[in-house]
């Protein structure tokens, strides 16, 4: 380990390379390549490996030279004349789009001196409306991932694009043009892109005999299949939750992981903004197996196995039919629904019928196609179709079809595929395990994989080609409702990578061409010939083409087809296994440290994917948290770890997909368990007939919240809508604390001049999606600390989502049927801040605008402030978490926020850098900061718009008005610490006939007073 980068820089570039190559052969260098964050970040405490990492940091600097194309040298010219609008140090904002499966998110990207540093939703774009989700927020880190593939590889040896183009042109292109693509096949991810669709059409024209398969491990495929059964065509369902009065979610996590969660959350939350007792509220019924955040928002949650959701839907349809709603295609399916709660089903049906066109029934993407077909018929029968649910024509979309992969694998095994082009994805890792994609791949002569990582598939292919990130390449998209937009790059490709468009163009034409030209060519026809440049610039500026959403249509359900599709199902028996999307989505974000460290919204587990089961199931199988179990399913088995998730359906196991990577990157490797090992073609989401057995071993899991009960403390307050509406001074549960009058001992600072910043968080809107946490991490340069540190309770998130379970006191079954409340918790900026008075060096002080400011330079790290913080929102740099950042990772950092060193305390600042920026701008223009001009990162990202921030000294500001709503309360207000953040109490809207657990709890609690 004595090897160091030679410092004699007199050698020529070539020799320098050679020495690097030599270094690259050392095991230490390979270690560097294979680990993501410096050892130190993920496994603090091993000083030897950290030091060795530092030695190797030299290599990474050299590597930057090797990568070569971080910035095209020939284009960098010192400004002689400053380009328009570029002010050094001032960020610029550009609109772009993030492709995501068959849809896309419209985004705005902040660019600091030429590098994108933060992504936000585009307020003009219907897919985000200014909000975001965790994947959007974390995408920026994916761009600067040092583990992304950096150059093409041929059979595991470094190569370059020229070599690949030569190979393709000389050996494949002409031959396939001549034989019309015989033996050529493409396996692609799904897309919704006019240019990709055009190129795909051209591909099919050039190579008519070629095969094209589209595969996604997790997608809305079942939903599309169901709609296809019901209507005979492909439609993209678009839900308008803002118009909904009654929602029935059948195993659907429409707020968390399924469909367009951002727009769904926005619409749903808009029906929950109760500002006075005149306002109404939607009612959400959820029937699901694993406890999702959608279930957490439910007014009534019905816990049942995913396999029982289909019969449950039939029972609801039956009941609706009985109540006079004619459902086409429902037919005479006989299902034993006797074990379902008949009152529940009757009440849901009544509510849905009453809501009529304002009802939504939505099925989860894990439910089989026939459930979706039935749901289509129900929505149609309720007249919801066309108002709350729209079915948009799919244009320019290549939607996933699992069957195509099966056919492709069969062809590969039969030897009829000679060349396979894989665009994105990692099928060796995530294709159905029974297809044995990996072994089929070995029977194909030429396998070419375009992929961001040198992943499992790439390593088995003859060619691996690096794929660009969407922030560094041109492209275009259609969003959920068909809205067109351009994917505008913010930076030149960091590595030698090419986009899907450039790759497919190359396949079609045999020459490498710029993606920019291909996209513009498509848009020539989209925008029409005249005035193209202007129209193009408008599209780039806006991030979308206005009024380009596709037309919704409302075809009648084909009753016969639906009836045929419905399988007469019996309630499933035995142990069921379900597969769900995780914080890594399907594994594509596995190397993203922000997402790995992000605690799961419900279980609060970070850095792992435990098998989730209910309390009763755990008892039945004699297992407990952190026990290792062997899951047997259809002749396959998997050893994994168990975590008890209160509220999970009994006899059901949830497995999260996307973990257990081995050679993907330094973050992903060795995290969690590869659950794809149990996932087969026939049963991708729900599999009955499993078995679980304790192995006797245990496995350590890292959770950010150990305790789920509020212990009867008035932390999250809630009441029912009925109670709220019926009284001028509504009663909240838990009861407001009784305390003596809060009399100060001295004259307090009045804080009544100038700006006085404050925040209101509406607990009735907050869906617990975690977007704020990642947004804050991105905006405020919050380090990733790794599993060991999270286990130690040292996670650094400035805003966390507290999740409390509520259940009927004294009910032993309470653990199985809890309600959930979420509470975003960050520094409350107390006016009488307990942290300030105990700091011996005045490192945390109050400013005159009411901010509790943290002076990093002055902090000596006594940690007394944290001890005295009743909300425990302060975070301490126990180690130098940022010391070993790879060079490229530093590009993610927000230049307006200090990167903290070891030994100092940090915490939420209300995004003081944004406040200062707005104040400076306003002062320059001789005005005051307008309301809404400053958005904190959490507020901006919140898809539900649950967070309001502004000047509470201005009675007209949104935040001041929100504080006047009579649901407003402050946590621990009885201590007279005067927090500036207040919360709006949560409301539930239970159906009067179904007992509301909150009310019951209230009564029980009161009897003890």
């Amino acid at each position, binding site marked *: 380990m004595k090897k160091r980068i030679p410092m004699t820089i007199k050698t020529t570039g070539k020799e320098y390379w050679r020495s690097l190559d030599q270094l690259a052969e050392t095991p230490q260098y390979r270690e560097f390549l294979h680990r993501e964050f410096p050892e130190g970040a993920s496994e603090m405490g091993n000083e030897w490996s950290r030091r060795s990492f530092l030695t190797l940091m030299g290599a990474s600097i050299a590597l930057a030279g090797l990568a070569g194309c971080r910035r095209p040298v020939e284009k960098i010219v010192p400004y002689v004349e400053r380009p328009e609008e570029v002010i050094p140090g001032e960020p610029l904002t550009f609109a772009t789009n993030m492709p995501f499966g068959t849809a896309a998110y419209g985004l705005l990207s902040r660019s600091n001196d030429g590098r994108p540093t933060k992504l936000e939703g585009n307020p003009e774009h219907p897919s985000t409306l200014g909000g975001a989700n965790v994947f959007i927020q974390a995408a920026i880190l994916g761009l600067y991932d040092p583990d992304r593939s950096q150059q093409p590889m041929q059979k595991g040896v470094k190569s370059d694009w020229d070599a690949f183009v030569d190979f393709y042109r000389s050996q494949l292109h002409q031959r396939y043009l001549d034989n019309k693509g015989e033996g050529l096949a493409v396996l692609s991810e799904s897309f919704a892109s006019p240019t990709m669709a055009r190129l795909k059409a051209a591909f099919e024209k050039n190579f008519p005999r070629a095969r094209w398969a589209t595969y996604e491990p997790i997608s809305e495929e079942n939903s599309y299949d169901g709609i296809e059964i019901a209507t005979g065509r492909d439609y993209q369902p678009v839900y308008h939750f803002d118009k909904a009065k009654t929602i029935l979610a059948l195993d659907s996590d429409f707020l968390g992981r399924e469909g367009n969660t951002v727009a769904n959350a926005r619409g749903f939350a808009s029906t929950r903004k109760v500002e006075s007792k005149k306002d109404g509220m939607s009612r959400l019924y959820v029937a699901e197996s694993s406890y999702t955040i959608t279930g957490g928002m439910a007014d009534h949650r019905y816990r049942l196995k995913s396999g029982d959701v289909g019969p449950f839907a039939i029972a609801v349809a039956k009941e609706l039919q009985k109540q006079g709603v004619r459902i086409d295609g429902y037919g005479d399916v006989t299902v034993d629904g006797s074990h379902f709660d008949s009152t529940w089903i009757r009440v849901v049906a009544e509510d849905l019928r009453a809501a009529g066109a304002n009802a939504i029934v939505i099925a989860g993407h894990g439910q089989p196609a026939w459930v979706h077909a039935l749901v289509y018929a129900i929505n149609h029968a309720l007249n919801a179709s066309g108002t709350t649910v729209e079915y948009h024509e799919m244009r320019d979309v290549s939607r996933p079809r699992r069957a195509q992969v099966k056919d492709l694998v069969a062809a590969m095994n039969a030897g009829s595929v000679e060349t396979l082009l894989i665009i994105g994805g990692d099928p060796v890792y995530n294709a159905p395990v029974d297809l044995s994609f990996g072994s089929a791949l070995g029977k194909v002569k030429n396998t070419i994989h375009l992929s961001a990582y040198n992943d499992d598939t790439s390593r088995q292919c003859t060619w691996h080609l690096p794929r660009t990130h969407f922030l560094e390449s041109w492209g275009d998209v259609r969003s959920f409702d068909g809205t067109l937009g351009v994917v505008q790059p913010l930076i030149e490709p960091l590595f030698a990578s090419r986009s899907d468009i450039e790759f497919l163009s190359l396949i079609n034409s045999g020459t490498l061409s710029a993606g920019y030209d291909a996209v513009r060519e498509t848009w020539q026809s989209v925008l029409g010939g005249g005035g193209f440049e202007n129209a193009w610039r408008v599209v780039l500026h806006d991030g979308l083409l206005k009024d380009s959403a596709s037309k919704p249509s409302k075809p009648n359900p084909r009753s016969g087809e639906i009836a045929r599709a419905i399988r007469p199902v019996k309630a499933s028996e035995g142990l069921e296994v379900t597969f769900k999307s995780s914080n890594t989505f399907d594994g594509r974000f596995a190397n993203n440290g922000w997402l790995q460290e992000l605690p799961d919204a419900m279980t609060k587990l970070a850095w792992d994917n435990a098998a989730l089961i209910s309390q009763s199931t755990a008892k039945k199988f004699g297992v407990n948290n952190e026990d290792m179990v062997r899951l047997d399913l259809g002749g396959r088995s998997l050893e994994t770890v168990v975590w008890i998730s209160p509220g999970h359906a009994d006899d059901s196991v949830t497995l999260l997909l996307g973990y257990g990577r081995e050679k993907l990157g330094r973050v992903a490797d060795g995290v969690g368990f590869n659950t794809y090992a149990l996932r087969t073609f026939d049963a991708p989401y729900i599999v009955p007939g499993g078995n679980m057995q304790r192995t006797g071993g245990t496995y350590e899991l890292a959770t950010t919240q150990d305790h789920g009960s509020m212990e009867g403390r008035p932390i999250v307050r809630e009441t029912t809508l009925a109670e709220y509406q019926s009284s001028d001074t509504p009663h909240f549960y838990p009861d407001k604390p009784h305390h003596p009058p809060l009399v100060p001992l001295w004259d307090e600072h009045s804080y009544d001049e100038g700006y006085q910043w404050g925040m209101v968080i509406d607990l009735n809107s907050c869906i617990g999606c975690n977007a704020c946490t990642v947004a804050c991490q991105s905006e405020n340069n919050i380090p990733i600390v790794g599993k060991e540190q999270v286990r130690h*309770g040292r996670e650094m998130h400035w805003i966390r989502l507290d999740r409390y379970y509520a259940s009927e006191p004294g009910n032993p079954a309470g653990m199985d049927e809890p309600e959930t409340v979420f509470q975003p918790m960050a520094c409350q900026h107390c006016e009488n801040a307990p942290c300030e008075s105990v700091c011996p060096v005045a490192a945390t002080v109050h400013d005159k605008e009411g901010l509790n400011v943290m002076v990093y330079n002055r902090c000596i790290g006594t940690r007394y402030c944290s001890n005295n913080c009743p909300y425990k929102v302060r975070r301490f740099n126990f180690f130098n978490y940022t010391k070993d950042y790879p060079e490229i990772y530093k590009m993610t950092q927000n230049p307006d926020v200090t990167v903290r060193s070891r030994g100092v305390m940090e915490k939420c600042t209300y995004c003081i850098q944004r406040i200062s920026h707005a104040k400076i701008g306003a002062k320059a223009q001789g005005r005051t900061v307008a309301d809404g001009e400053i958005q904190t990162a959490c507020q901006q990202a919140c898809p539900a718009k649950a967070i309001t921030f502004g000047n509470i000294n201005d009675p007209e500001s949104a935040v001041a008005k929100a504080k006047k709503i009579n649901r407003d309360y402050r946590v621990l207000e009885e201590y007279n610490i005067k927090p500036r953040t207040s919360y709006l109490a949560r409301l539930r809207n239970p159906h009067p006939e179904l007992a509301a657990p909150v009310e019951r709890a209230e009564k029980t609690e009161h009897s003890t007073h």
Partner: protein
Amino acid sequence: MVDEPLITGNQTFHSITDTVSKIAERKTTVTWLALIGMALSLVLVLLGSIGYLVWEGIGVWGLNIPVAWGWAIVNFVFWVGIGHAGTLISAILHLFRQQWRTSINRFAEAMTLFAVICALIFPGIHVGRIWVAYWLFPVPNQMQMWPQFRSPLLWDVFAVSVYFTVSLMFWYVGLIPDLATLRDRAKTKVRKIVLGIASLGWRGGNRQWINYERAYLVLAGLSTPLVLSVHSVVSTDFAVSMVPGWHTTIFPPYFVAGAIFSGFAMVMTLGIIVRKIFKLEHIITLNHLEKMNKIMLLTGMMVGYAYSCEFFIAWYSGNTYEAFTFVNRAFGPYAWAYWIMVSCNVLVPQIFWFKKIRRNVAVMFVATIFINIGMWFERFVIVMSLARDFLPSSWDYYSPTIWDVATFVGSFGLFFTLFLLFIRFFPIIAMAEVKGVLPQADPHHGGKH
């Protein structure tokens, strides 16, 4: 009524001088070398753990959020507490004319100093950025920044440093006549010079004695409030905060009582050993030990009273957070520590109701060890109130790492090193004072005849 003599065995002035001085004058023994070797190796452990801590960061300890203070603070309070006995014995008992104190005050004071030195390590190293820890002191600087005077940590800095300074002066002033005695007996040149300088030209003249006793009295007067203030101020580190289980007005007296309790226990532990090894049974008699046992019985009950009073107030206040904290102490995840504390600090001293046990050296030795352990756990239990405070979402469990343990064990190494040096080179009994309580020094028997 005739008091039992404080010093037994028909001691004369000369025999006292001889017995005590010989301990400091004899040749270095192999046992002593072995002991100090062991102690010094523990000092190395201490230095090593501190070095690693400074190199890597506070994260090498088991701390987290919410438990941002752990063993370091526990150890600090533990050592400061031990450092209470010496000054109490020297100053307060002096003012109260408790003459029996003369046999034990010298090494009790030395122990105080060494304990405070050990204590001072911890607040120094427990900050996140040790290289700027000097900002805690009101040093004029280019930033024009003062410390924040409202913080109890700053009060701590002043309280403990003043206590240390005054204790050191007090101890040294008391040493002067004895050092002069040693000087007069010195045979080698080096000893003569060193002791000559150290004894500040003491000749034992009348005027010197008068000045000396005045100075001693003044210092005793100065030290007396400090004995009470130091641990009161240390207790404000907790009491001034709003953490349930910390925020309570009983803390200052409760901490002082606890400190005296633990200090006496440590004096006893060491005293019993020293007495045995150096055959000082005639000077530190069973009567002395019995008196100290009585004080421990008293302070132990005061501590026990404080424990129960805390529970009562937690219930009586009607504050749910306080009430929860105390129930949680007794039955929560740290219940084991709580019951160790109660057993050692409240139950064990009850044996001293019996005179037989009060005068049984072996039993009392074991009991003092238990009390030392119990008092460490008391501080641990208090600090661990952090683990479960207001919002259950942030609750967590703290467990120490090997580095926490190494630092604590190492601090004992430092303590014993200093103590071994002390018993090797200094008169461990205040000869002059002991002579003052011999019958020969008071031919008129204090006017009792």
